[in-house]
């Protein structure tokens, strides 16, 4: 059992290398190109594993698209042209930051809408609570009045009061 574990590990290490082998390391001659490449692949969603960007994903398609983006950057295409290329093929869904459109306004403004609803609800709840506090305060007024009444009664007629 003790030897089996390292052996399995070695097995996985040896055979997993084939997974990465077709993903060539990207080399840029131009620093600006490299910077653009990095920020682009982090902005584009991999459609195979939808919660990963192209930079994170190991899927075959992600490798192909990274290569495609690399080629376009090297051939001096602008970021807009590259994004347009991808959107024409895969739709706005490839963008982690979709453009503001009729069908995305809920996506963009939904959080503010919900924050507003929350604020509204909070105001109502606070107001209601303040009202009940006032009722309690009014009750206290009643009690105070009774107290002064009691204090103002003649001590002589009071049977159980303290005397100096």
């Amino acid at each position: 059992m003790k030897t089996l574990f390292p052996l399995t590990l070695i097995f996985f290490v040896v055979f997993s290398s084939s997974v990465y082998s077709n993903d060539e390391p990207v080399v840029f001659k131009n620093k600006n190109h490299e910077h653009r490449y990095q920020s682009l692949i982090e902005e584009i969603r991999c459609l195979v594993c939808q919660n990963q960007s192209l930079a994170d994903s190991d899927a075959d398609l992600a490798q192909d698209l990274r290569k495609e983006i690399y080629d376009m950057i090297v051939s001096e295409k602008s970021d807009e042209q590259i994004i347009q290329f991808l959107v024409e093929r895969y739709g706005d869904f490839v963008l982690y930051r979709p453009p503001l459109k009729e069908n995305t306004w809920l996506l963009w403004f939904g959080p503010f809408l919900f924050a507003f609803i929350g604020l509204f609800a909070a105001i109502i709840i606070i107001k209601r609570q303040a009202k009940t506090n006032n009722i309690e305060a009014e009750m206290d007024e009643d009690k105070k009045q009774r107290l002064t009444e009691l204090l103002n009664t003649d001590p002589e007629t009071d049977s159980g009061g303290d005397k100096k």
Partner: protein
Amino acid sequence: MIRYLLPLGLFVGLVIIFIYGLQHDPRHVPSPLIDKPAPAFNLPTLHSPEINIHLEDLKGKVSLLNVWASWCVACRTEHPILIGATSKYPNLNLYGLNYKDKREDALQWLQQLGNPYIENAFDESGSISIDYGVYGAPETFVIDKAGIIRYKHIGPINKQQLETIILPLVKELESQQI
């Protein structure tokens, strides 16, 4: 009364939203290519590398373009449906786009499981498939007589989808004049 009805109403609302959400497959990404001209291609055929197939070869008739590969497990599930469709409807123009495959593997696949395709385009690098926005084989495009993509099916087609969606659409498009 509202104290009890409000949480109940919110709960029912959430349930409705969840049911709505469950009925939608997040993997189904609407294709921007619908009602747009099919991307042009000029690829060697799978059977003979020296002969090329072009998009123009598909024009003038309604055709189905099925993206598949021998390494694709879901394609294996779909394959008998395609075989059944072409044997039942011999007029169905089914073309294949073989996606990032090895030629001998793909040919062996067809030999073993049968070949429902009129012709297969061999997209070894996958670059034409990128033009078609393919992200998960199998995918099937319905292309009309003028070469416009009318429908895209992502994932394996089942019998019901074939009979209720794809074949009626093909029939409808066939009745149209260019």
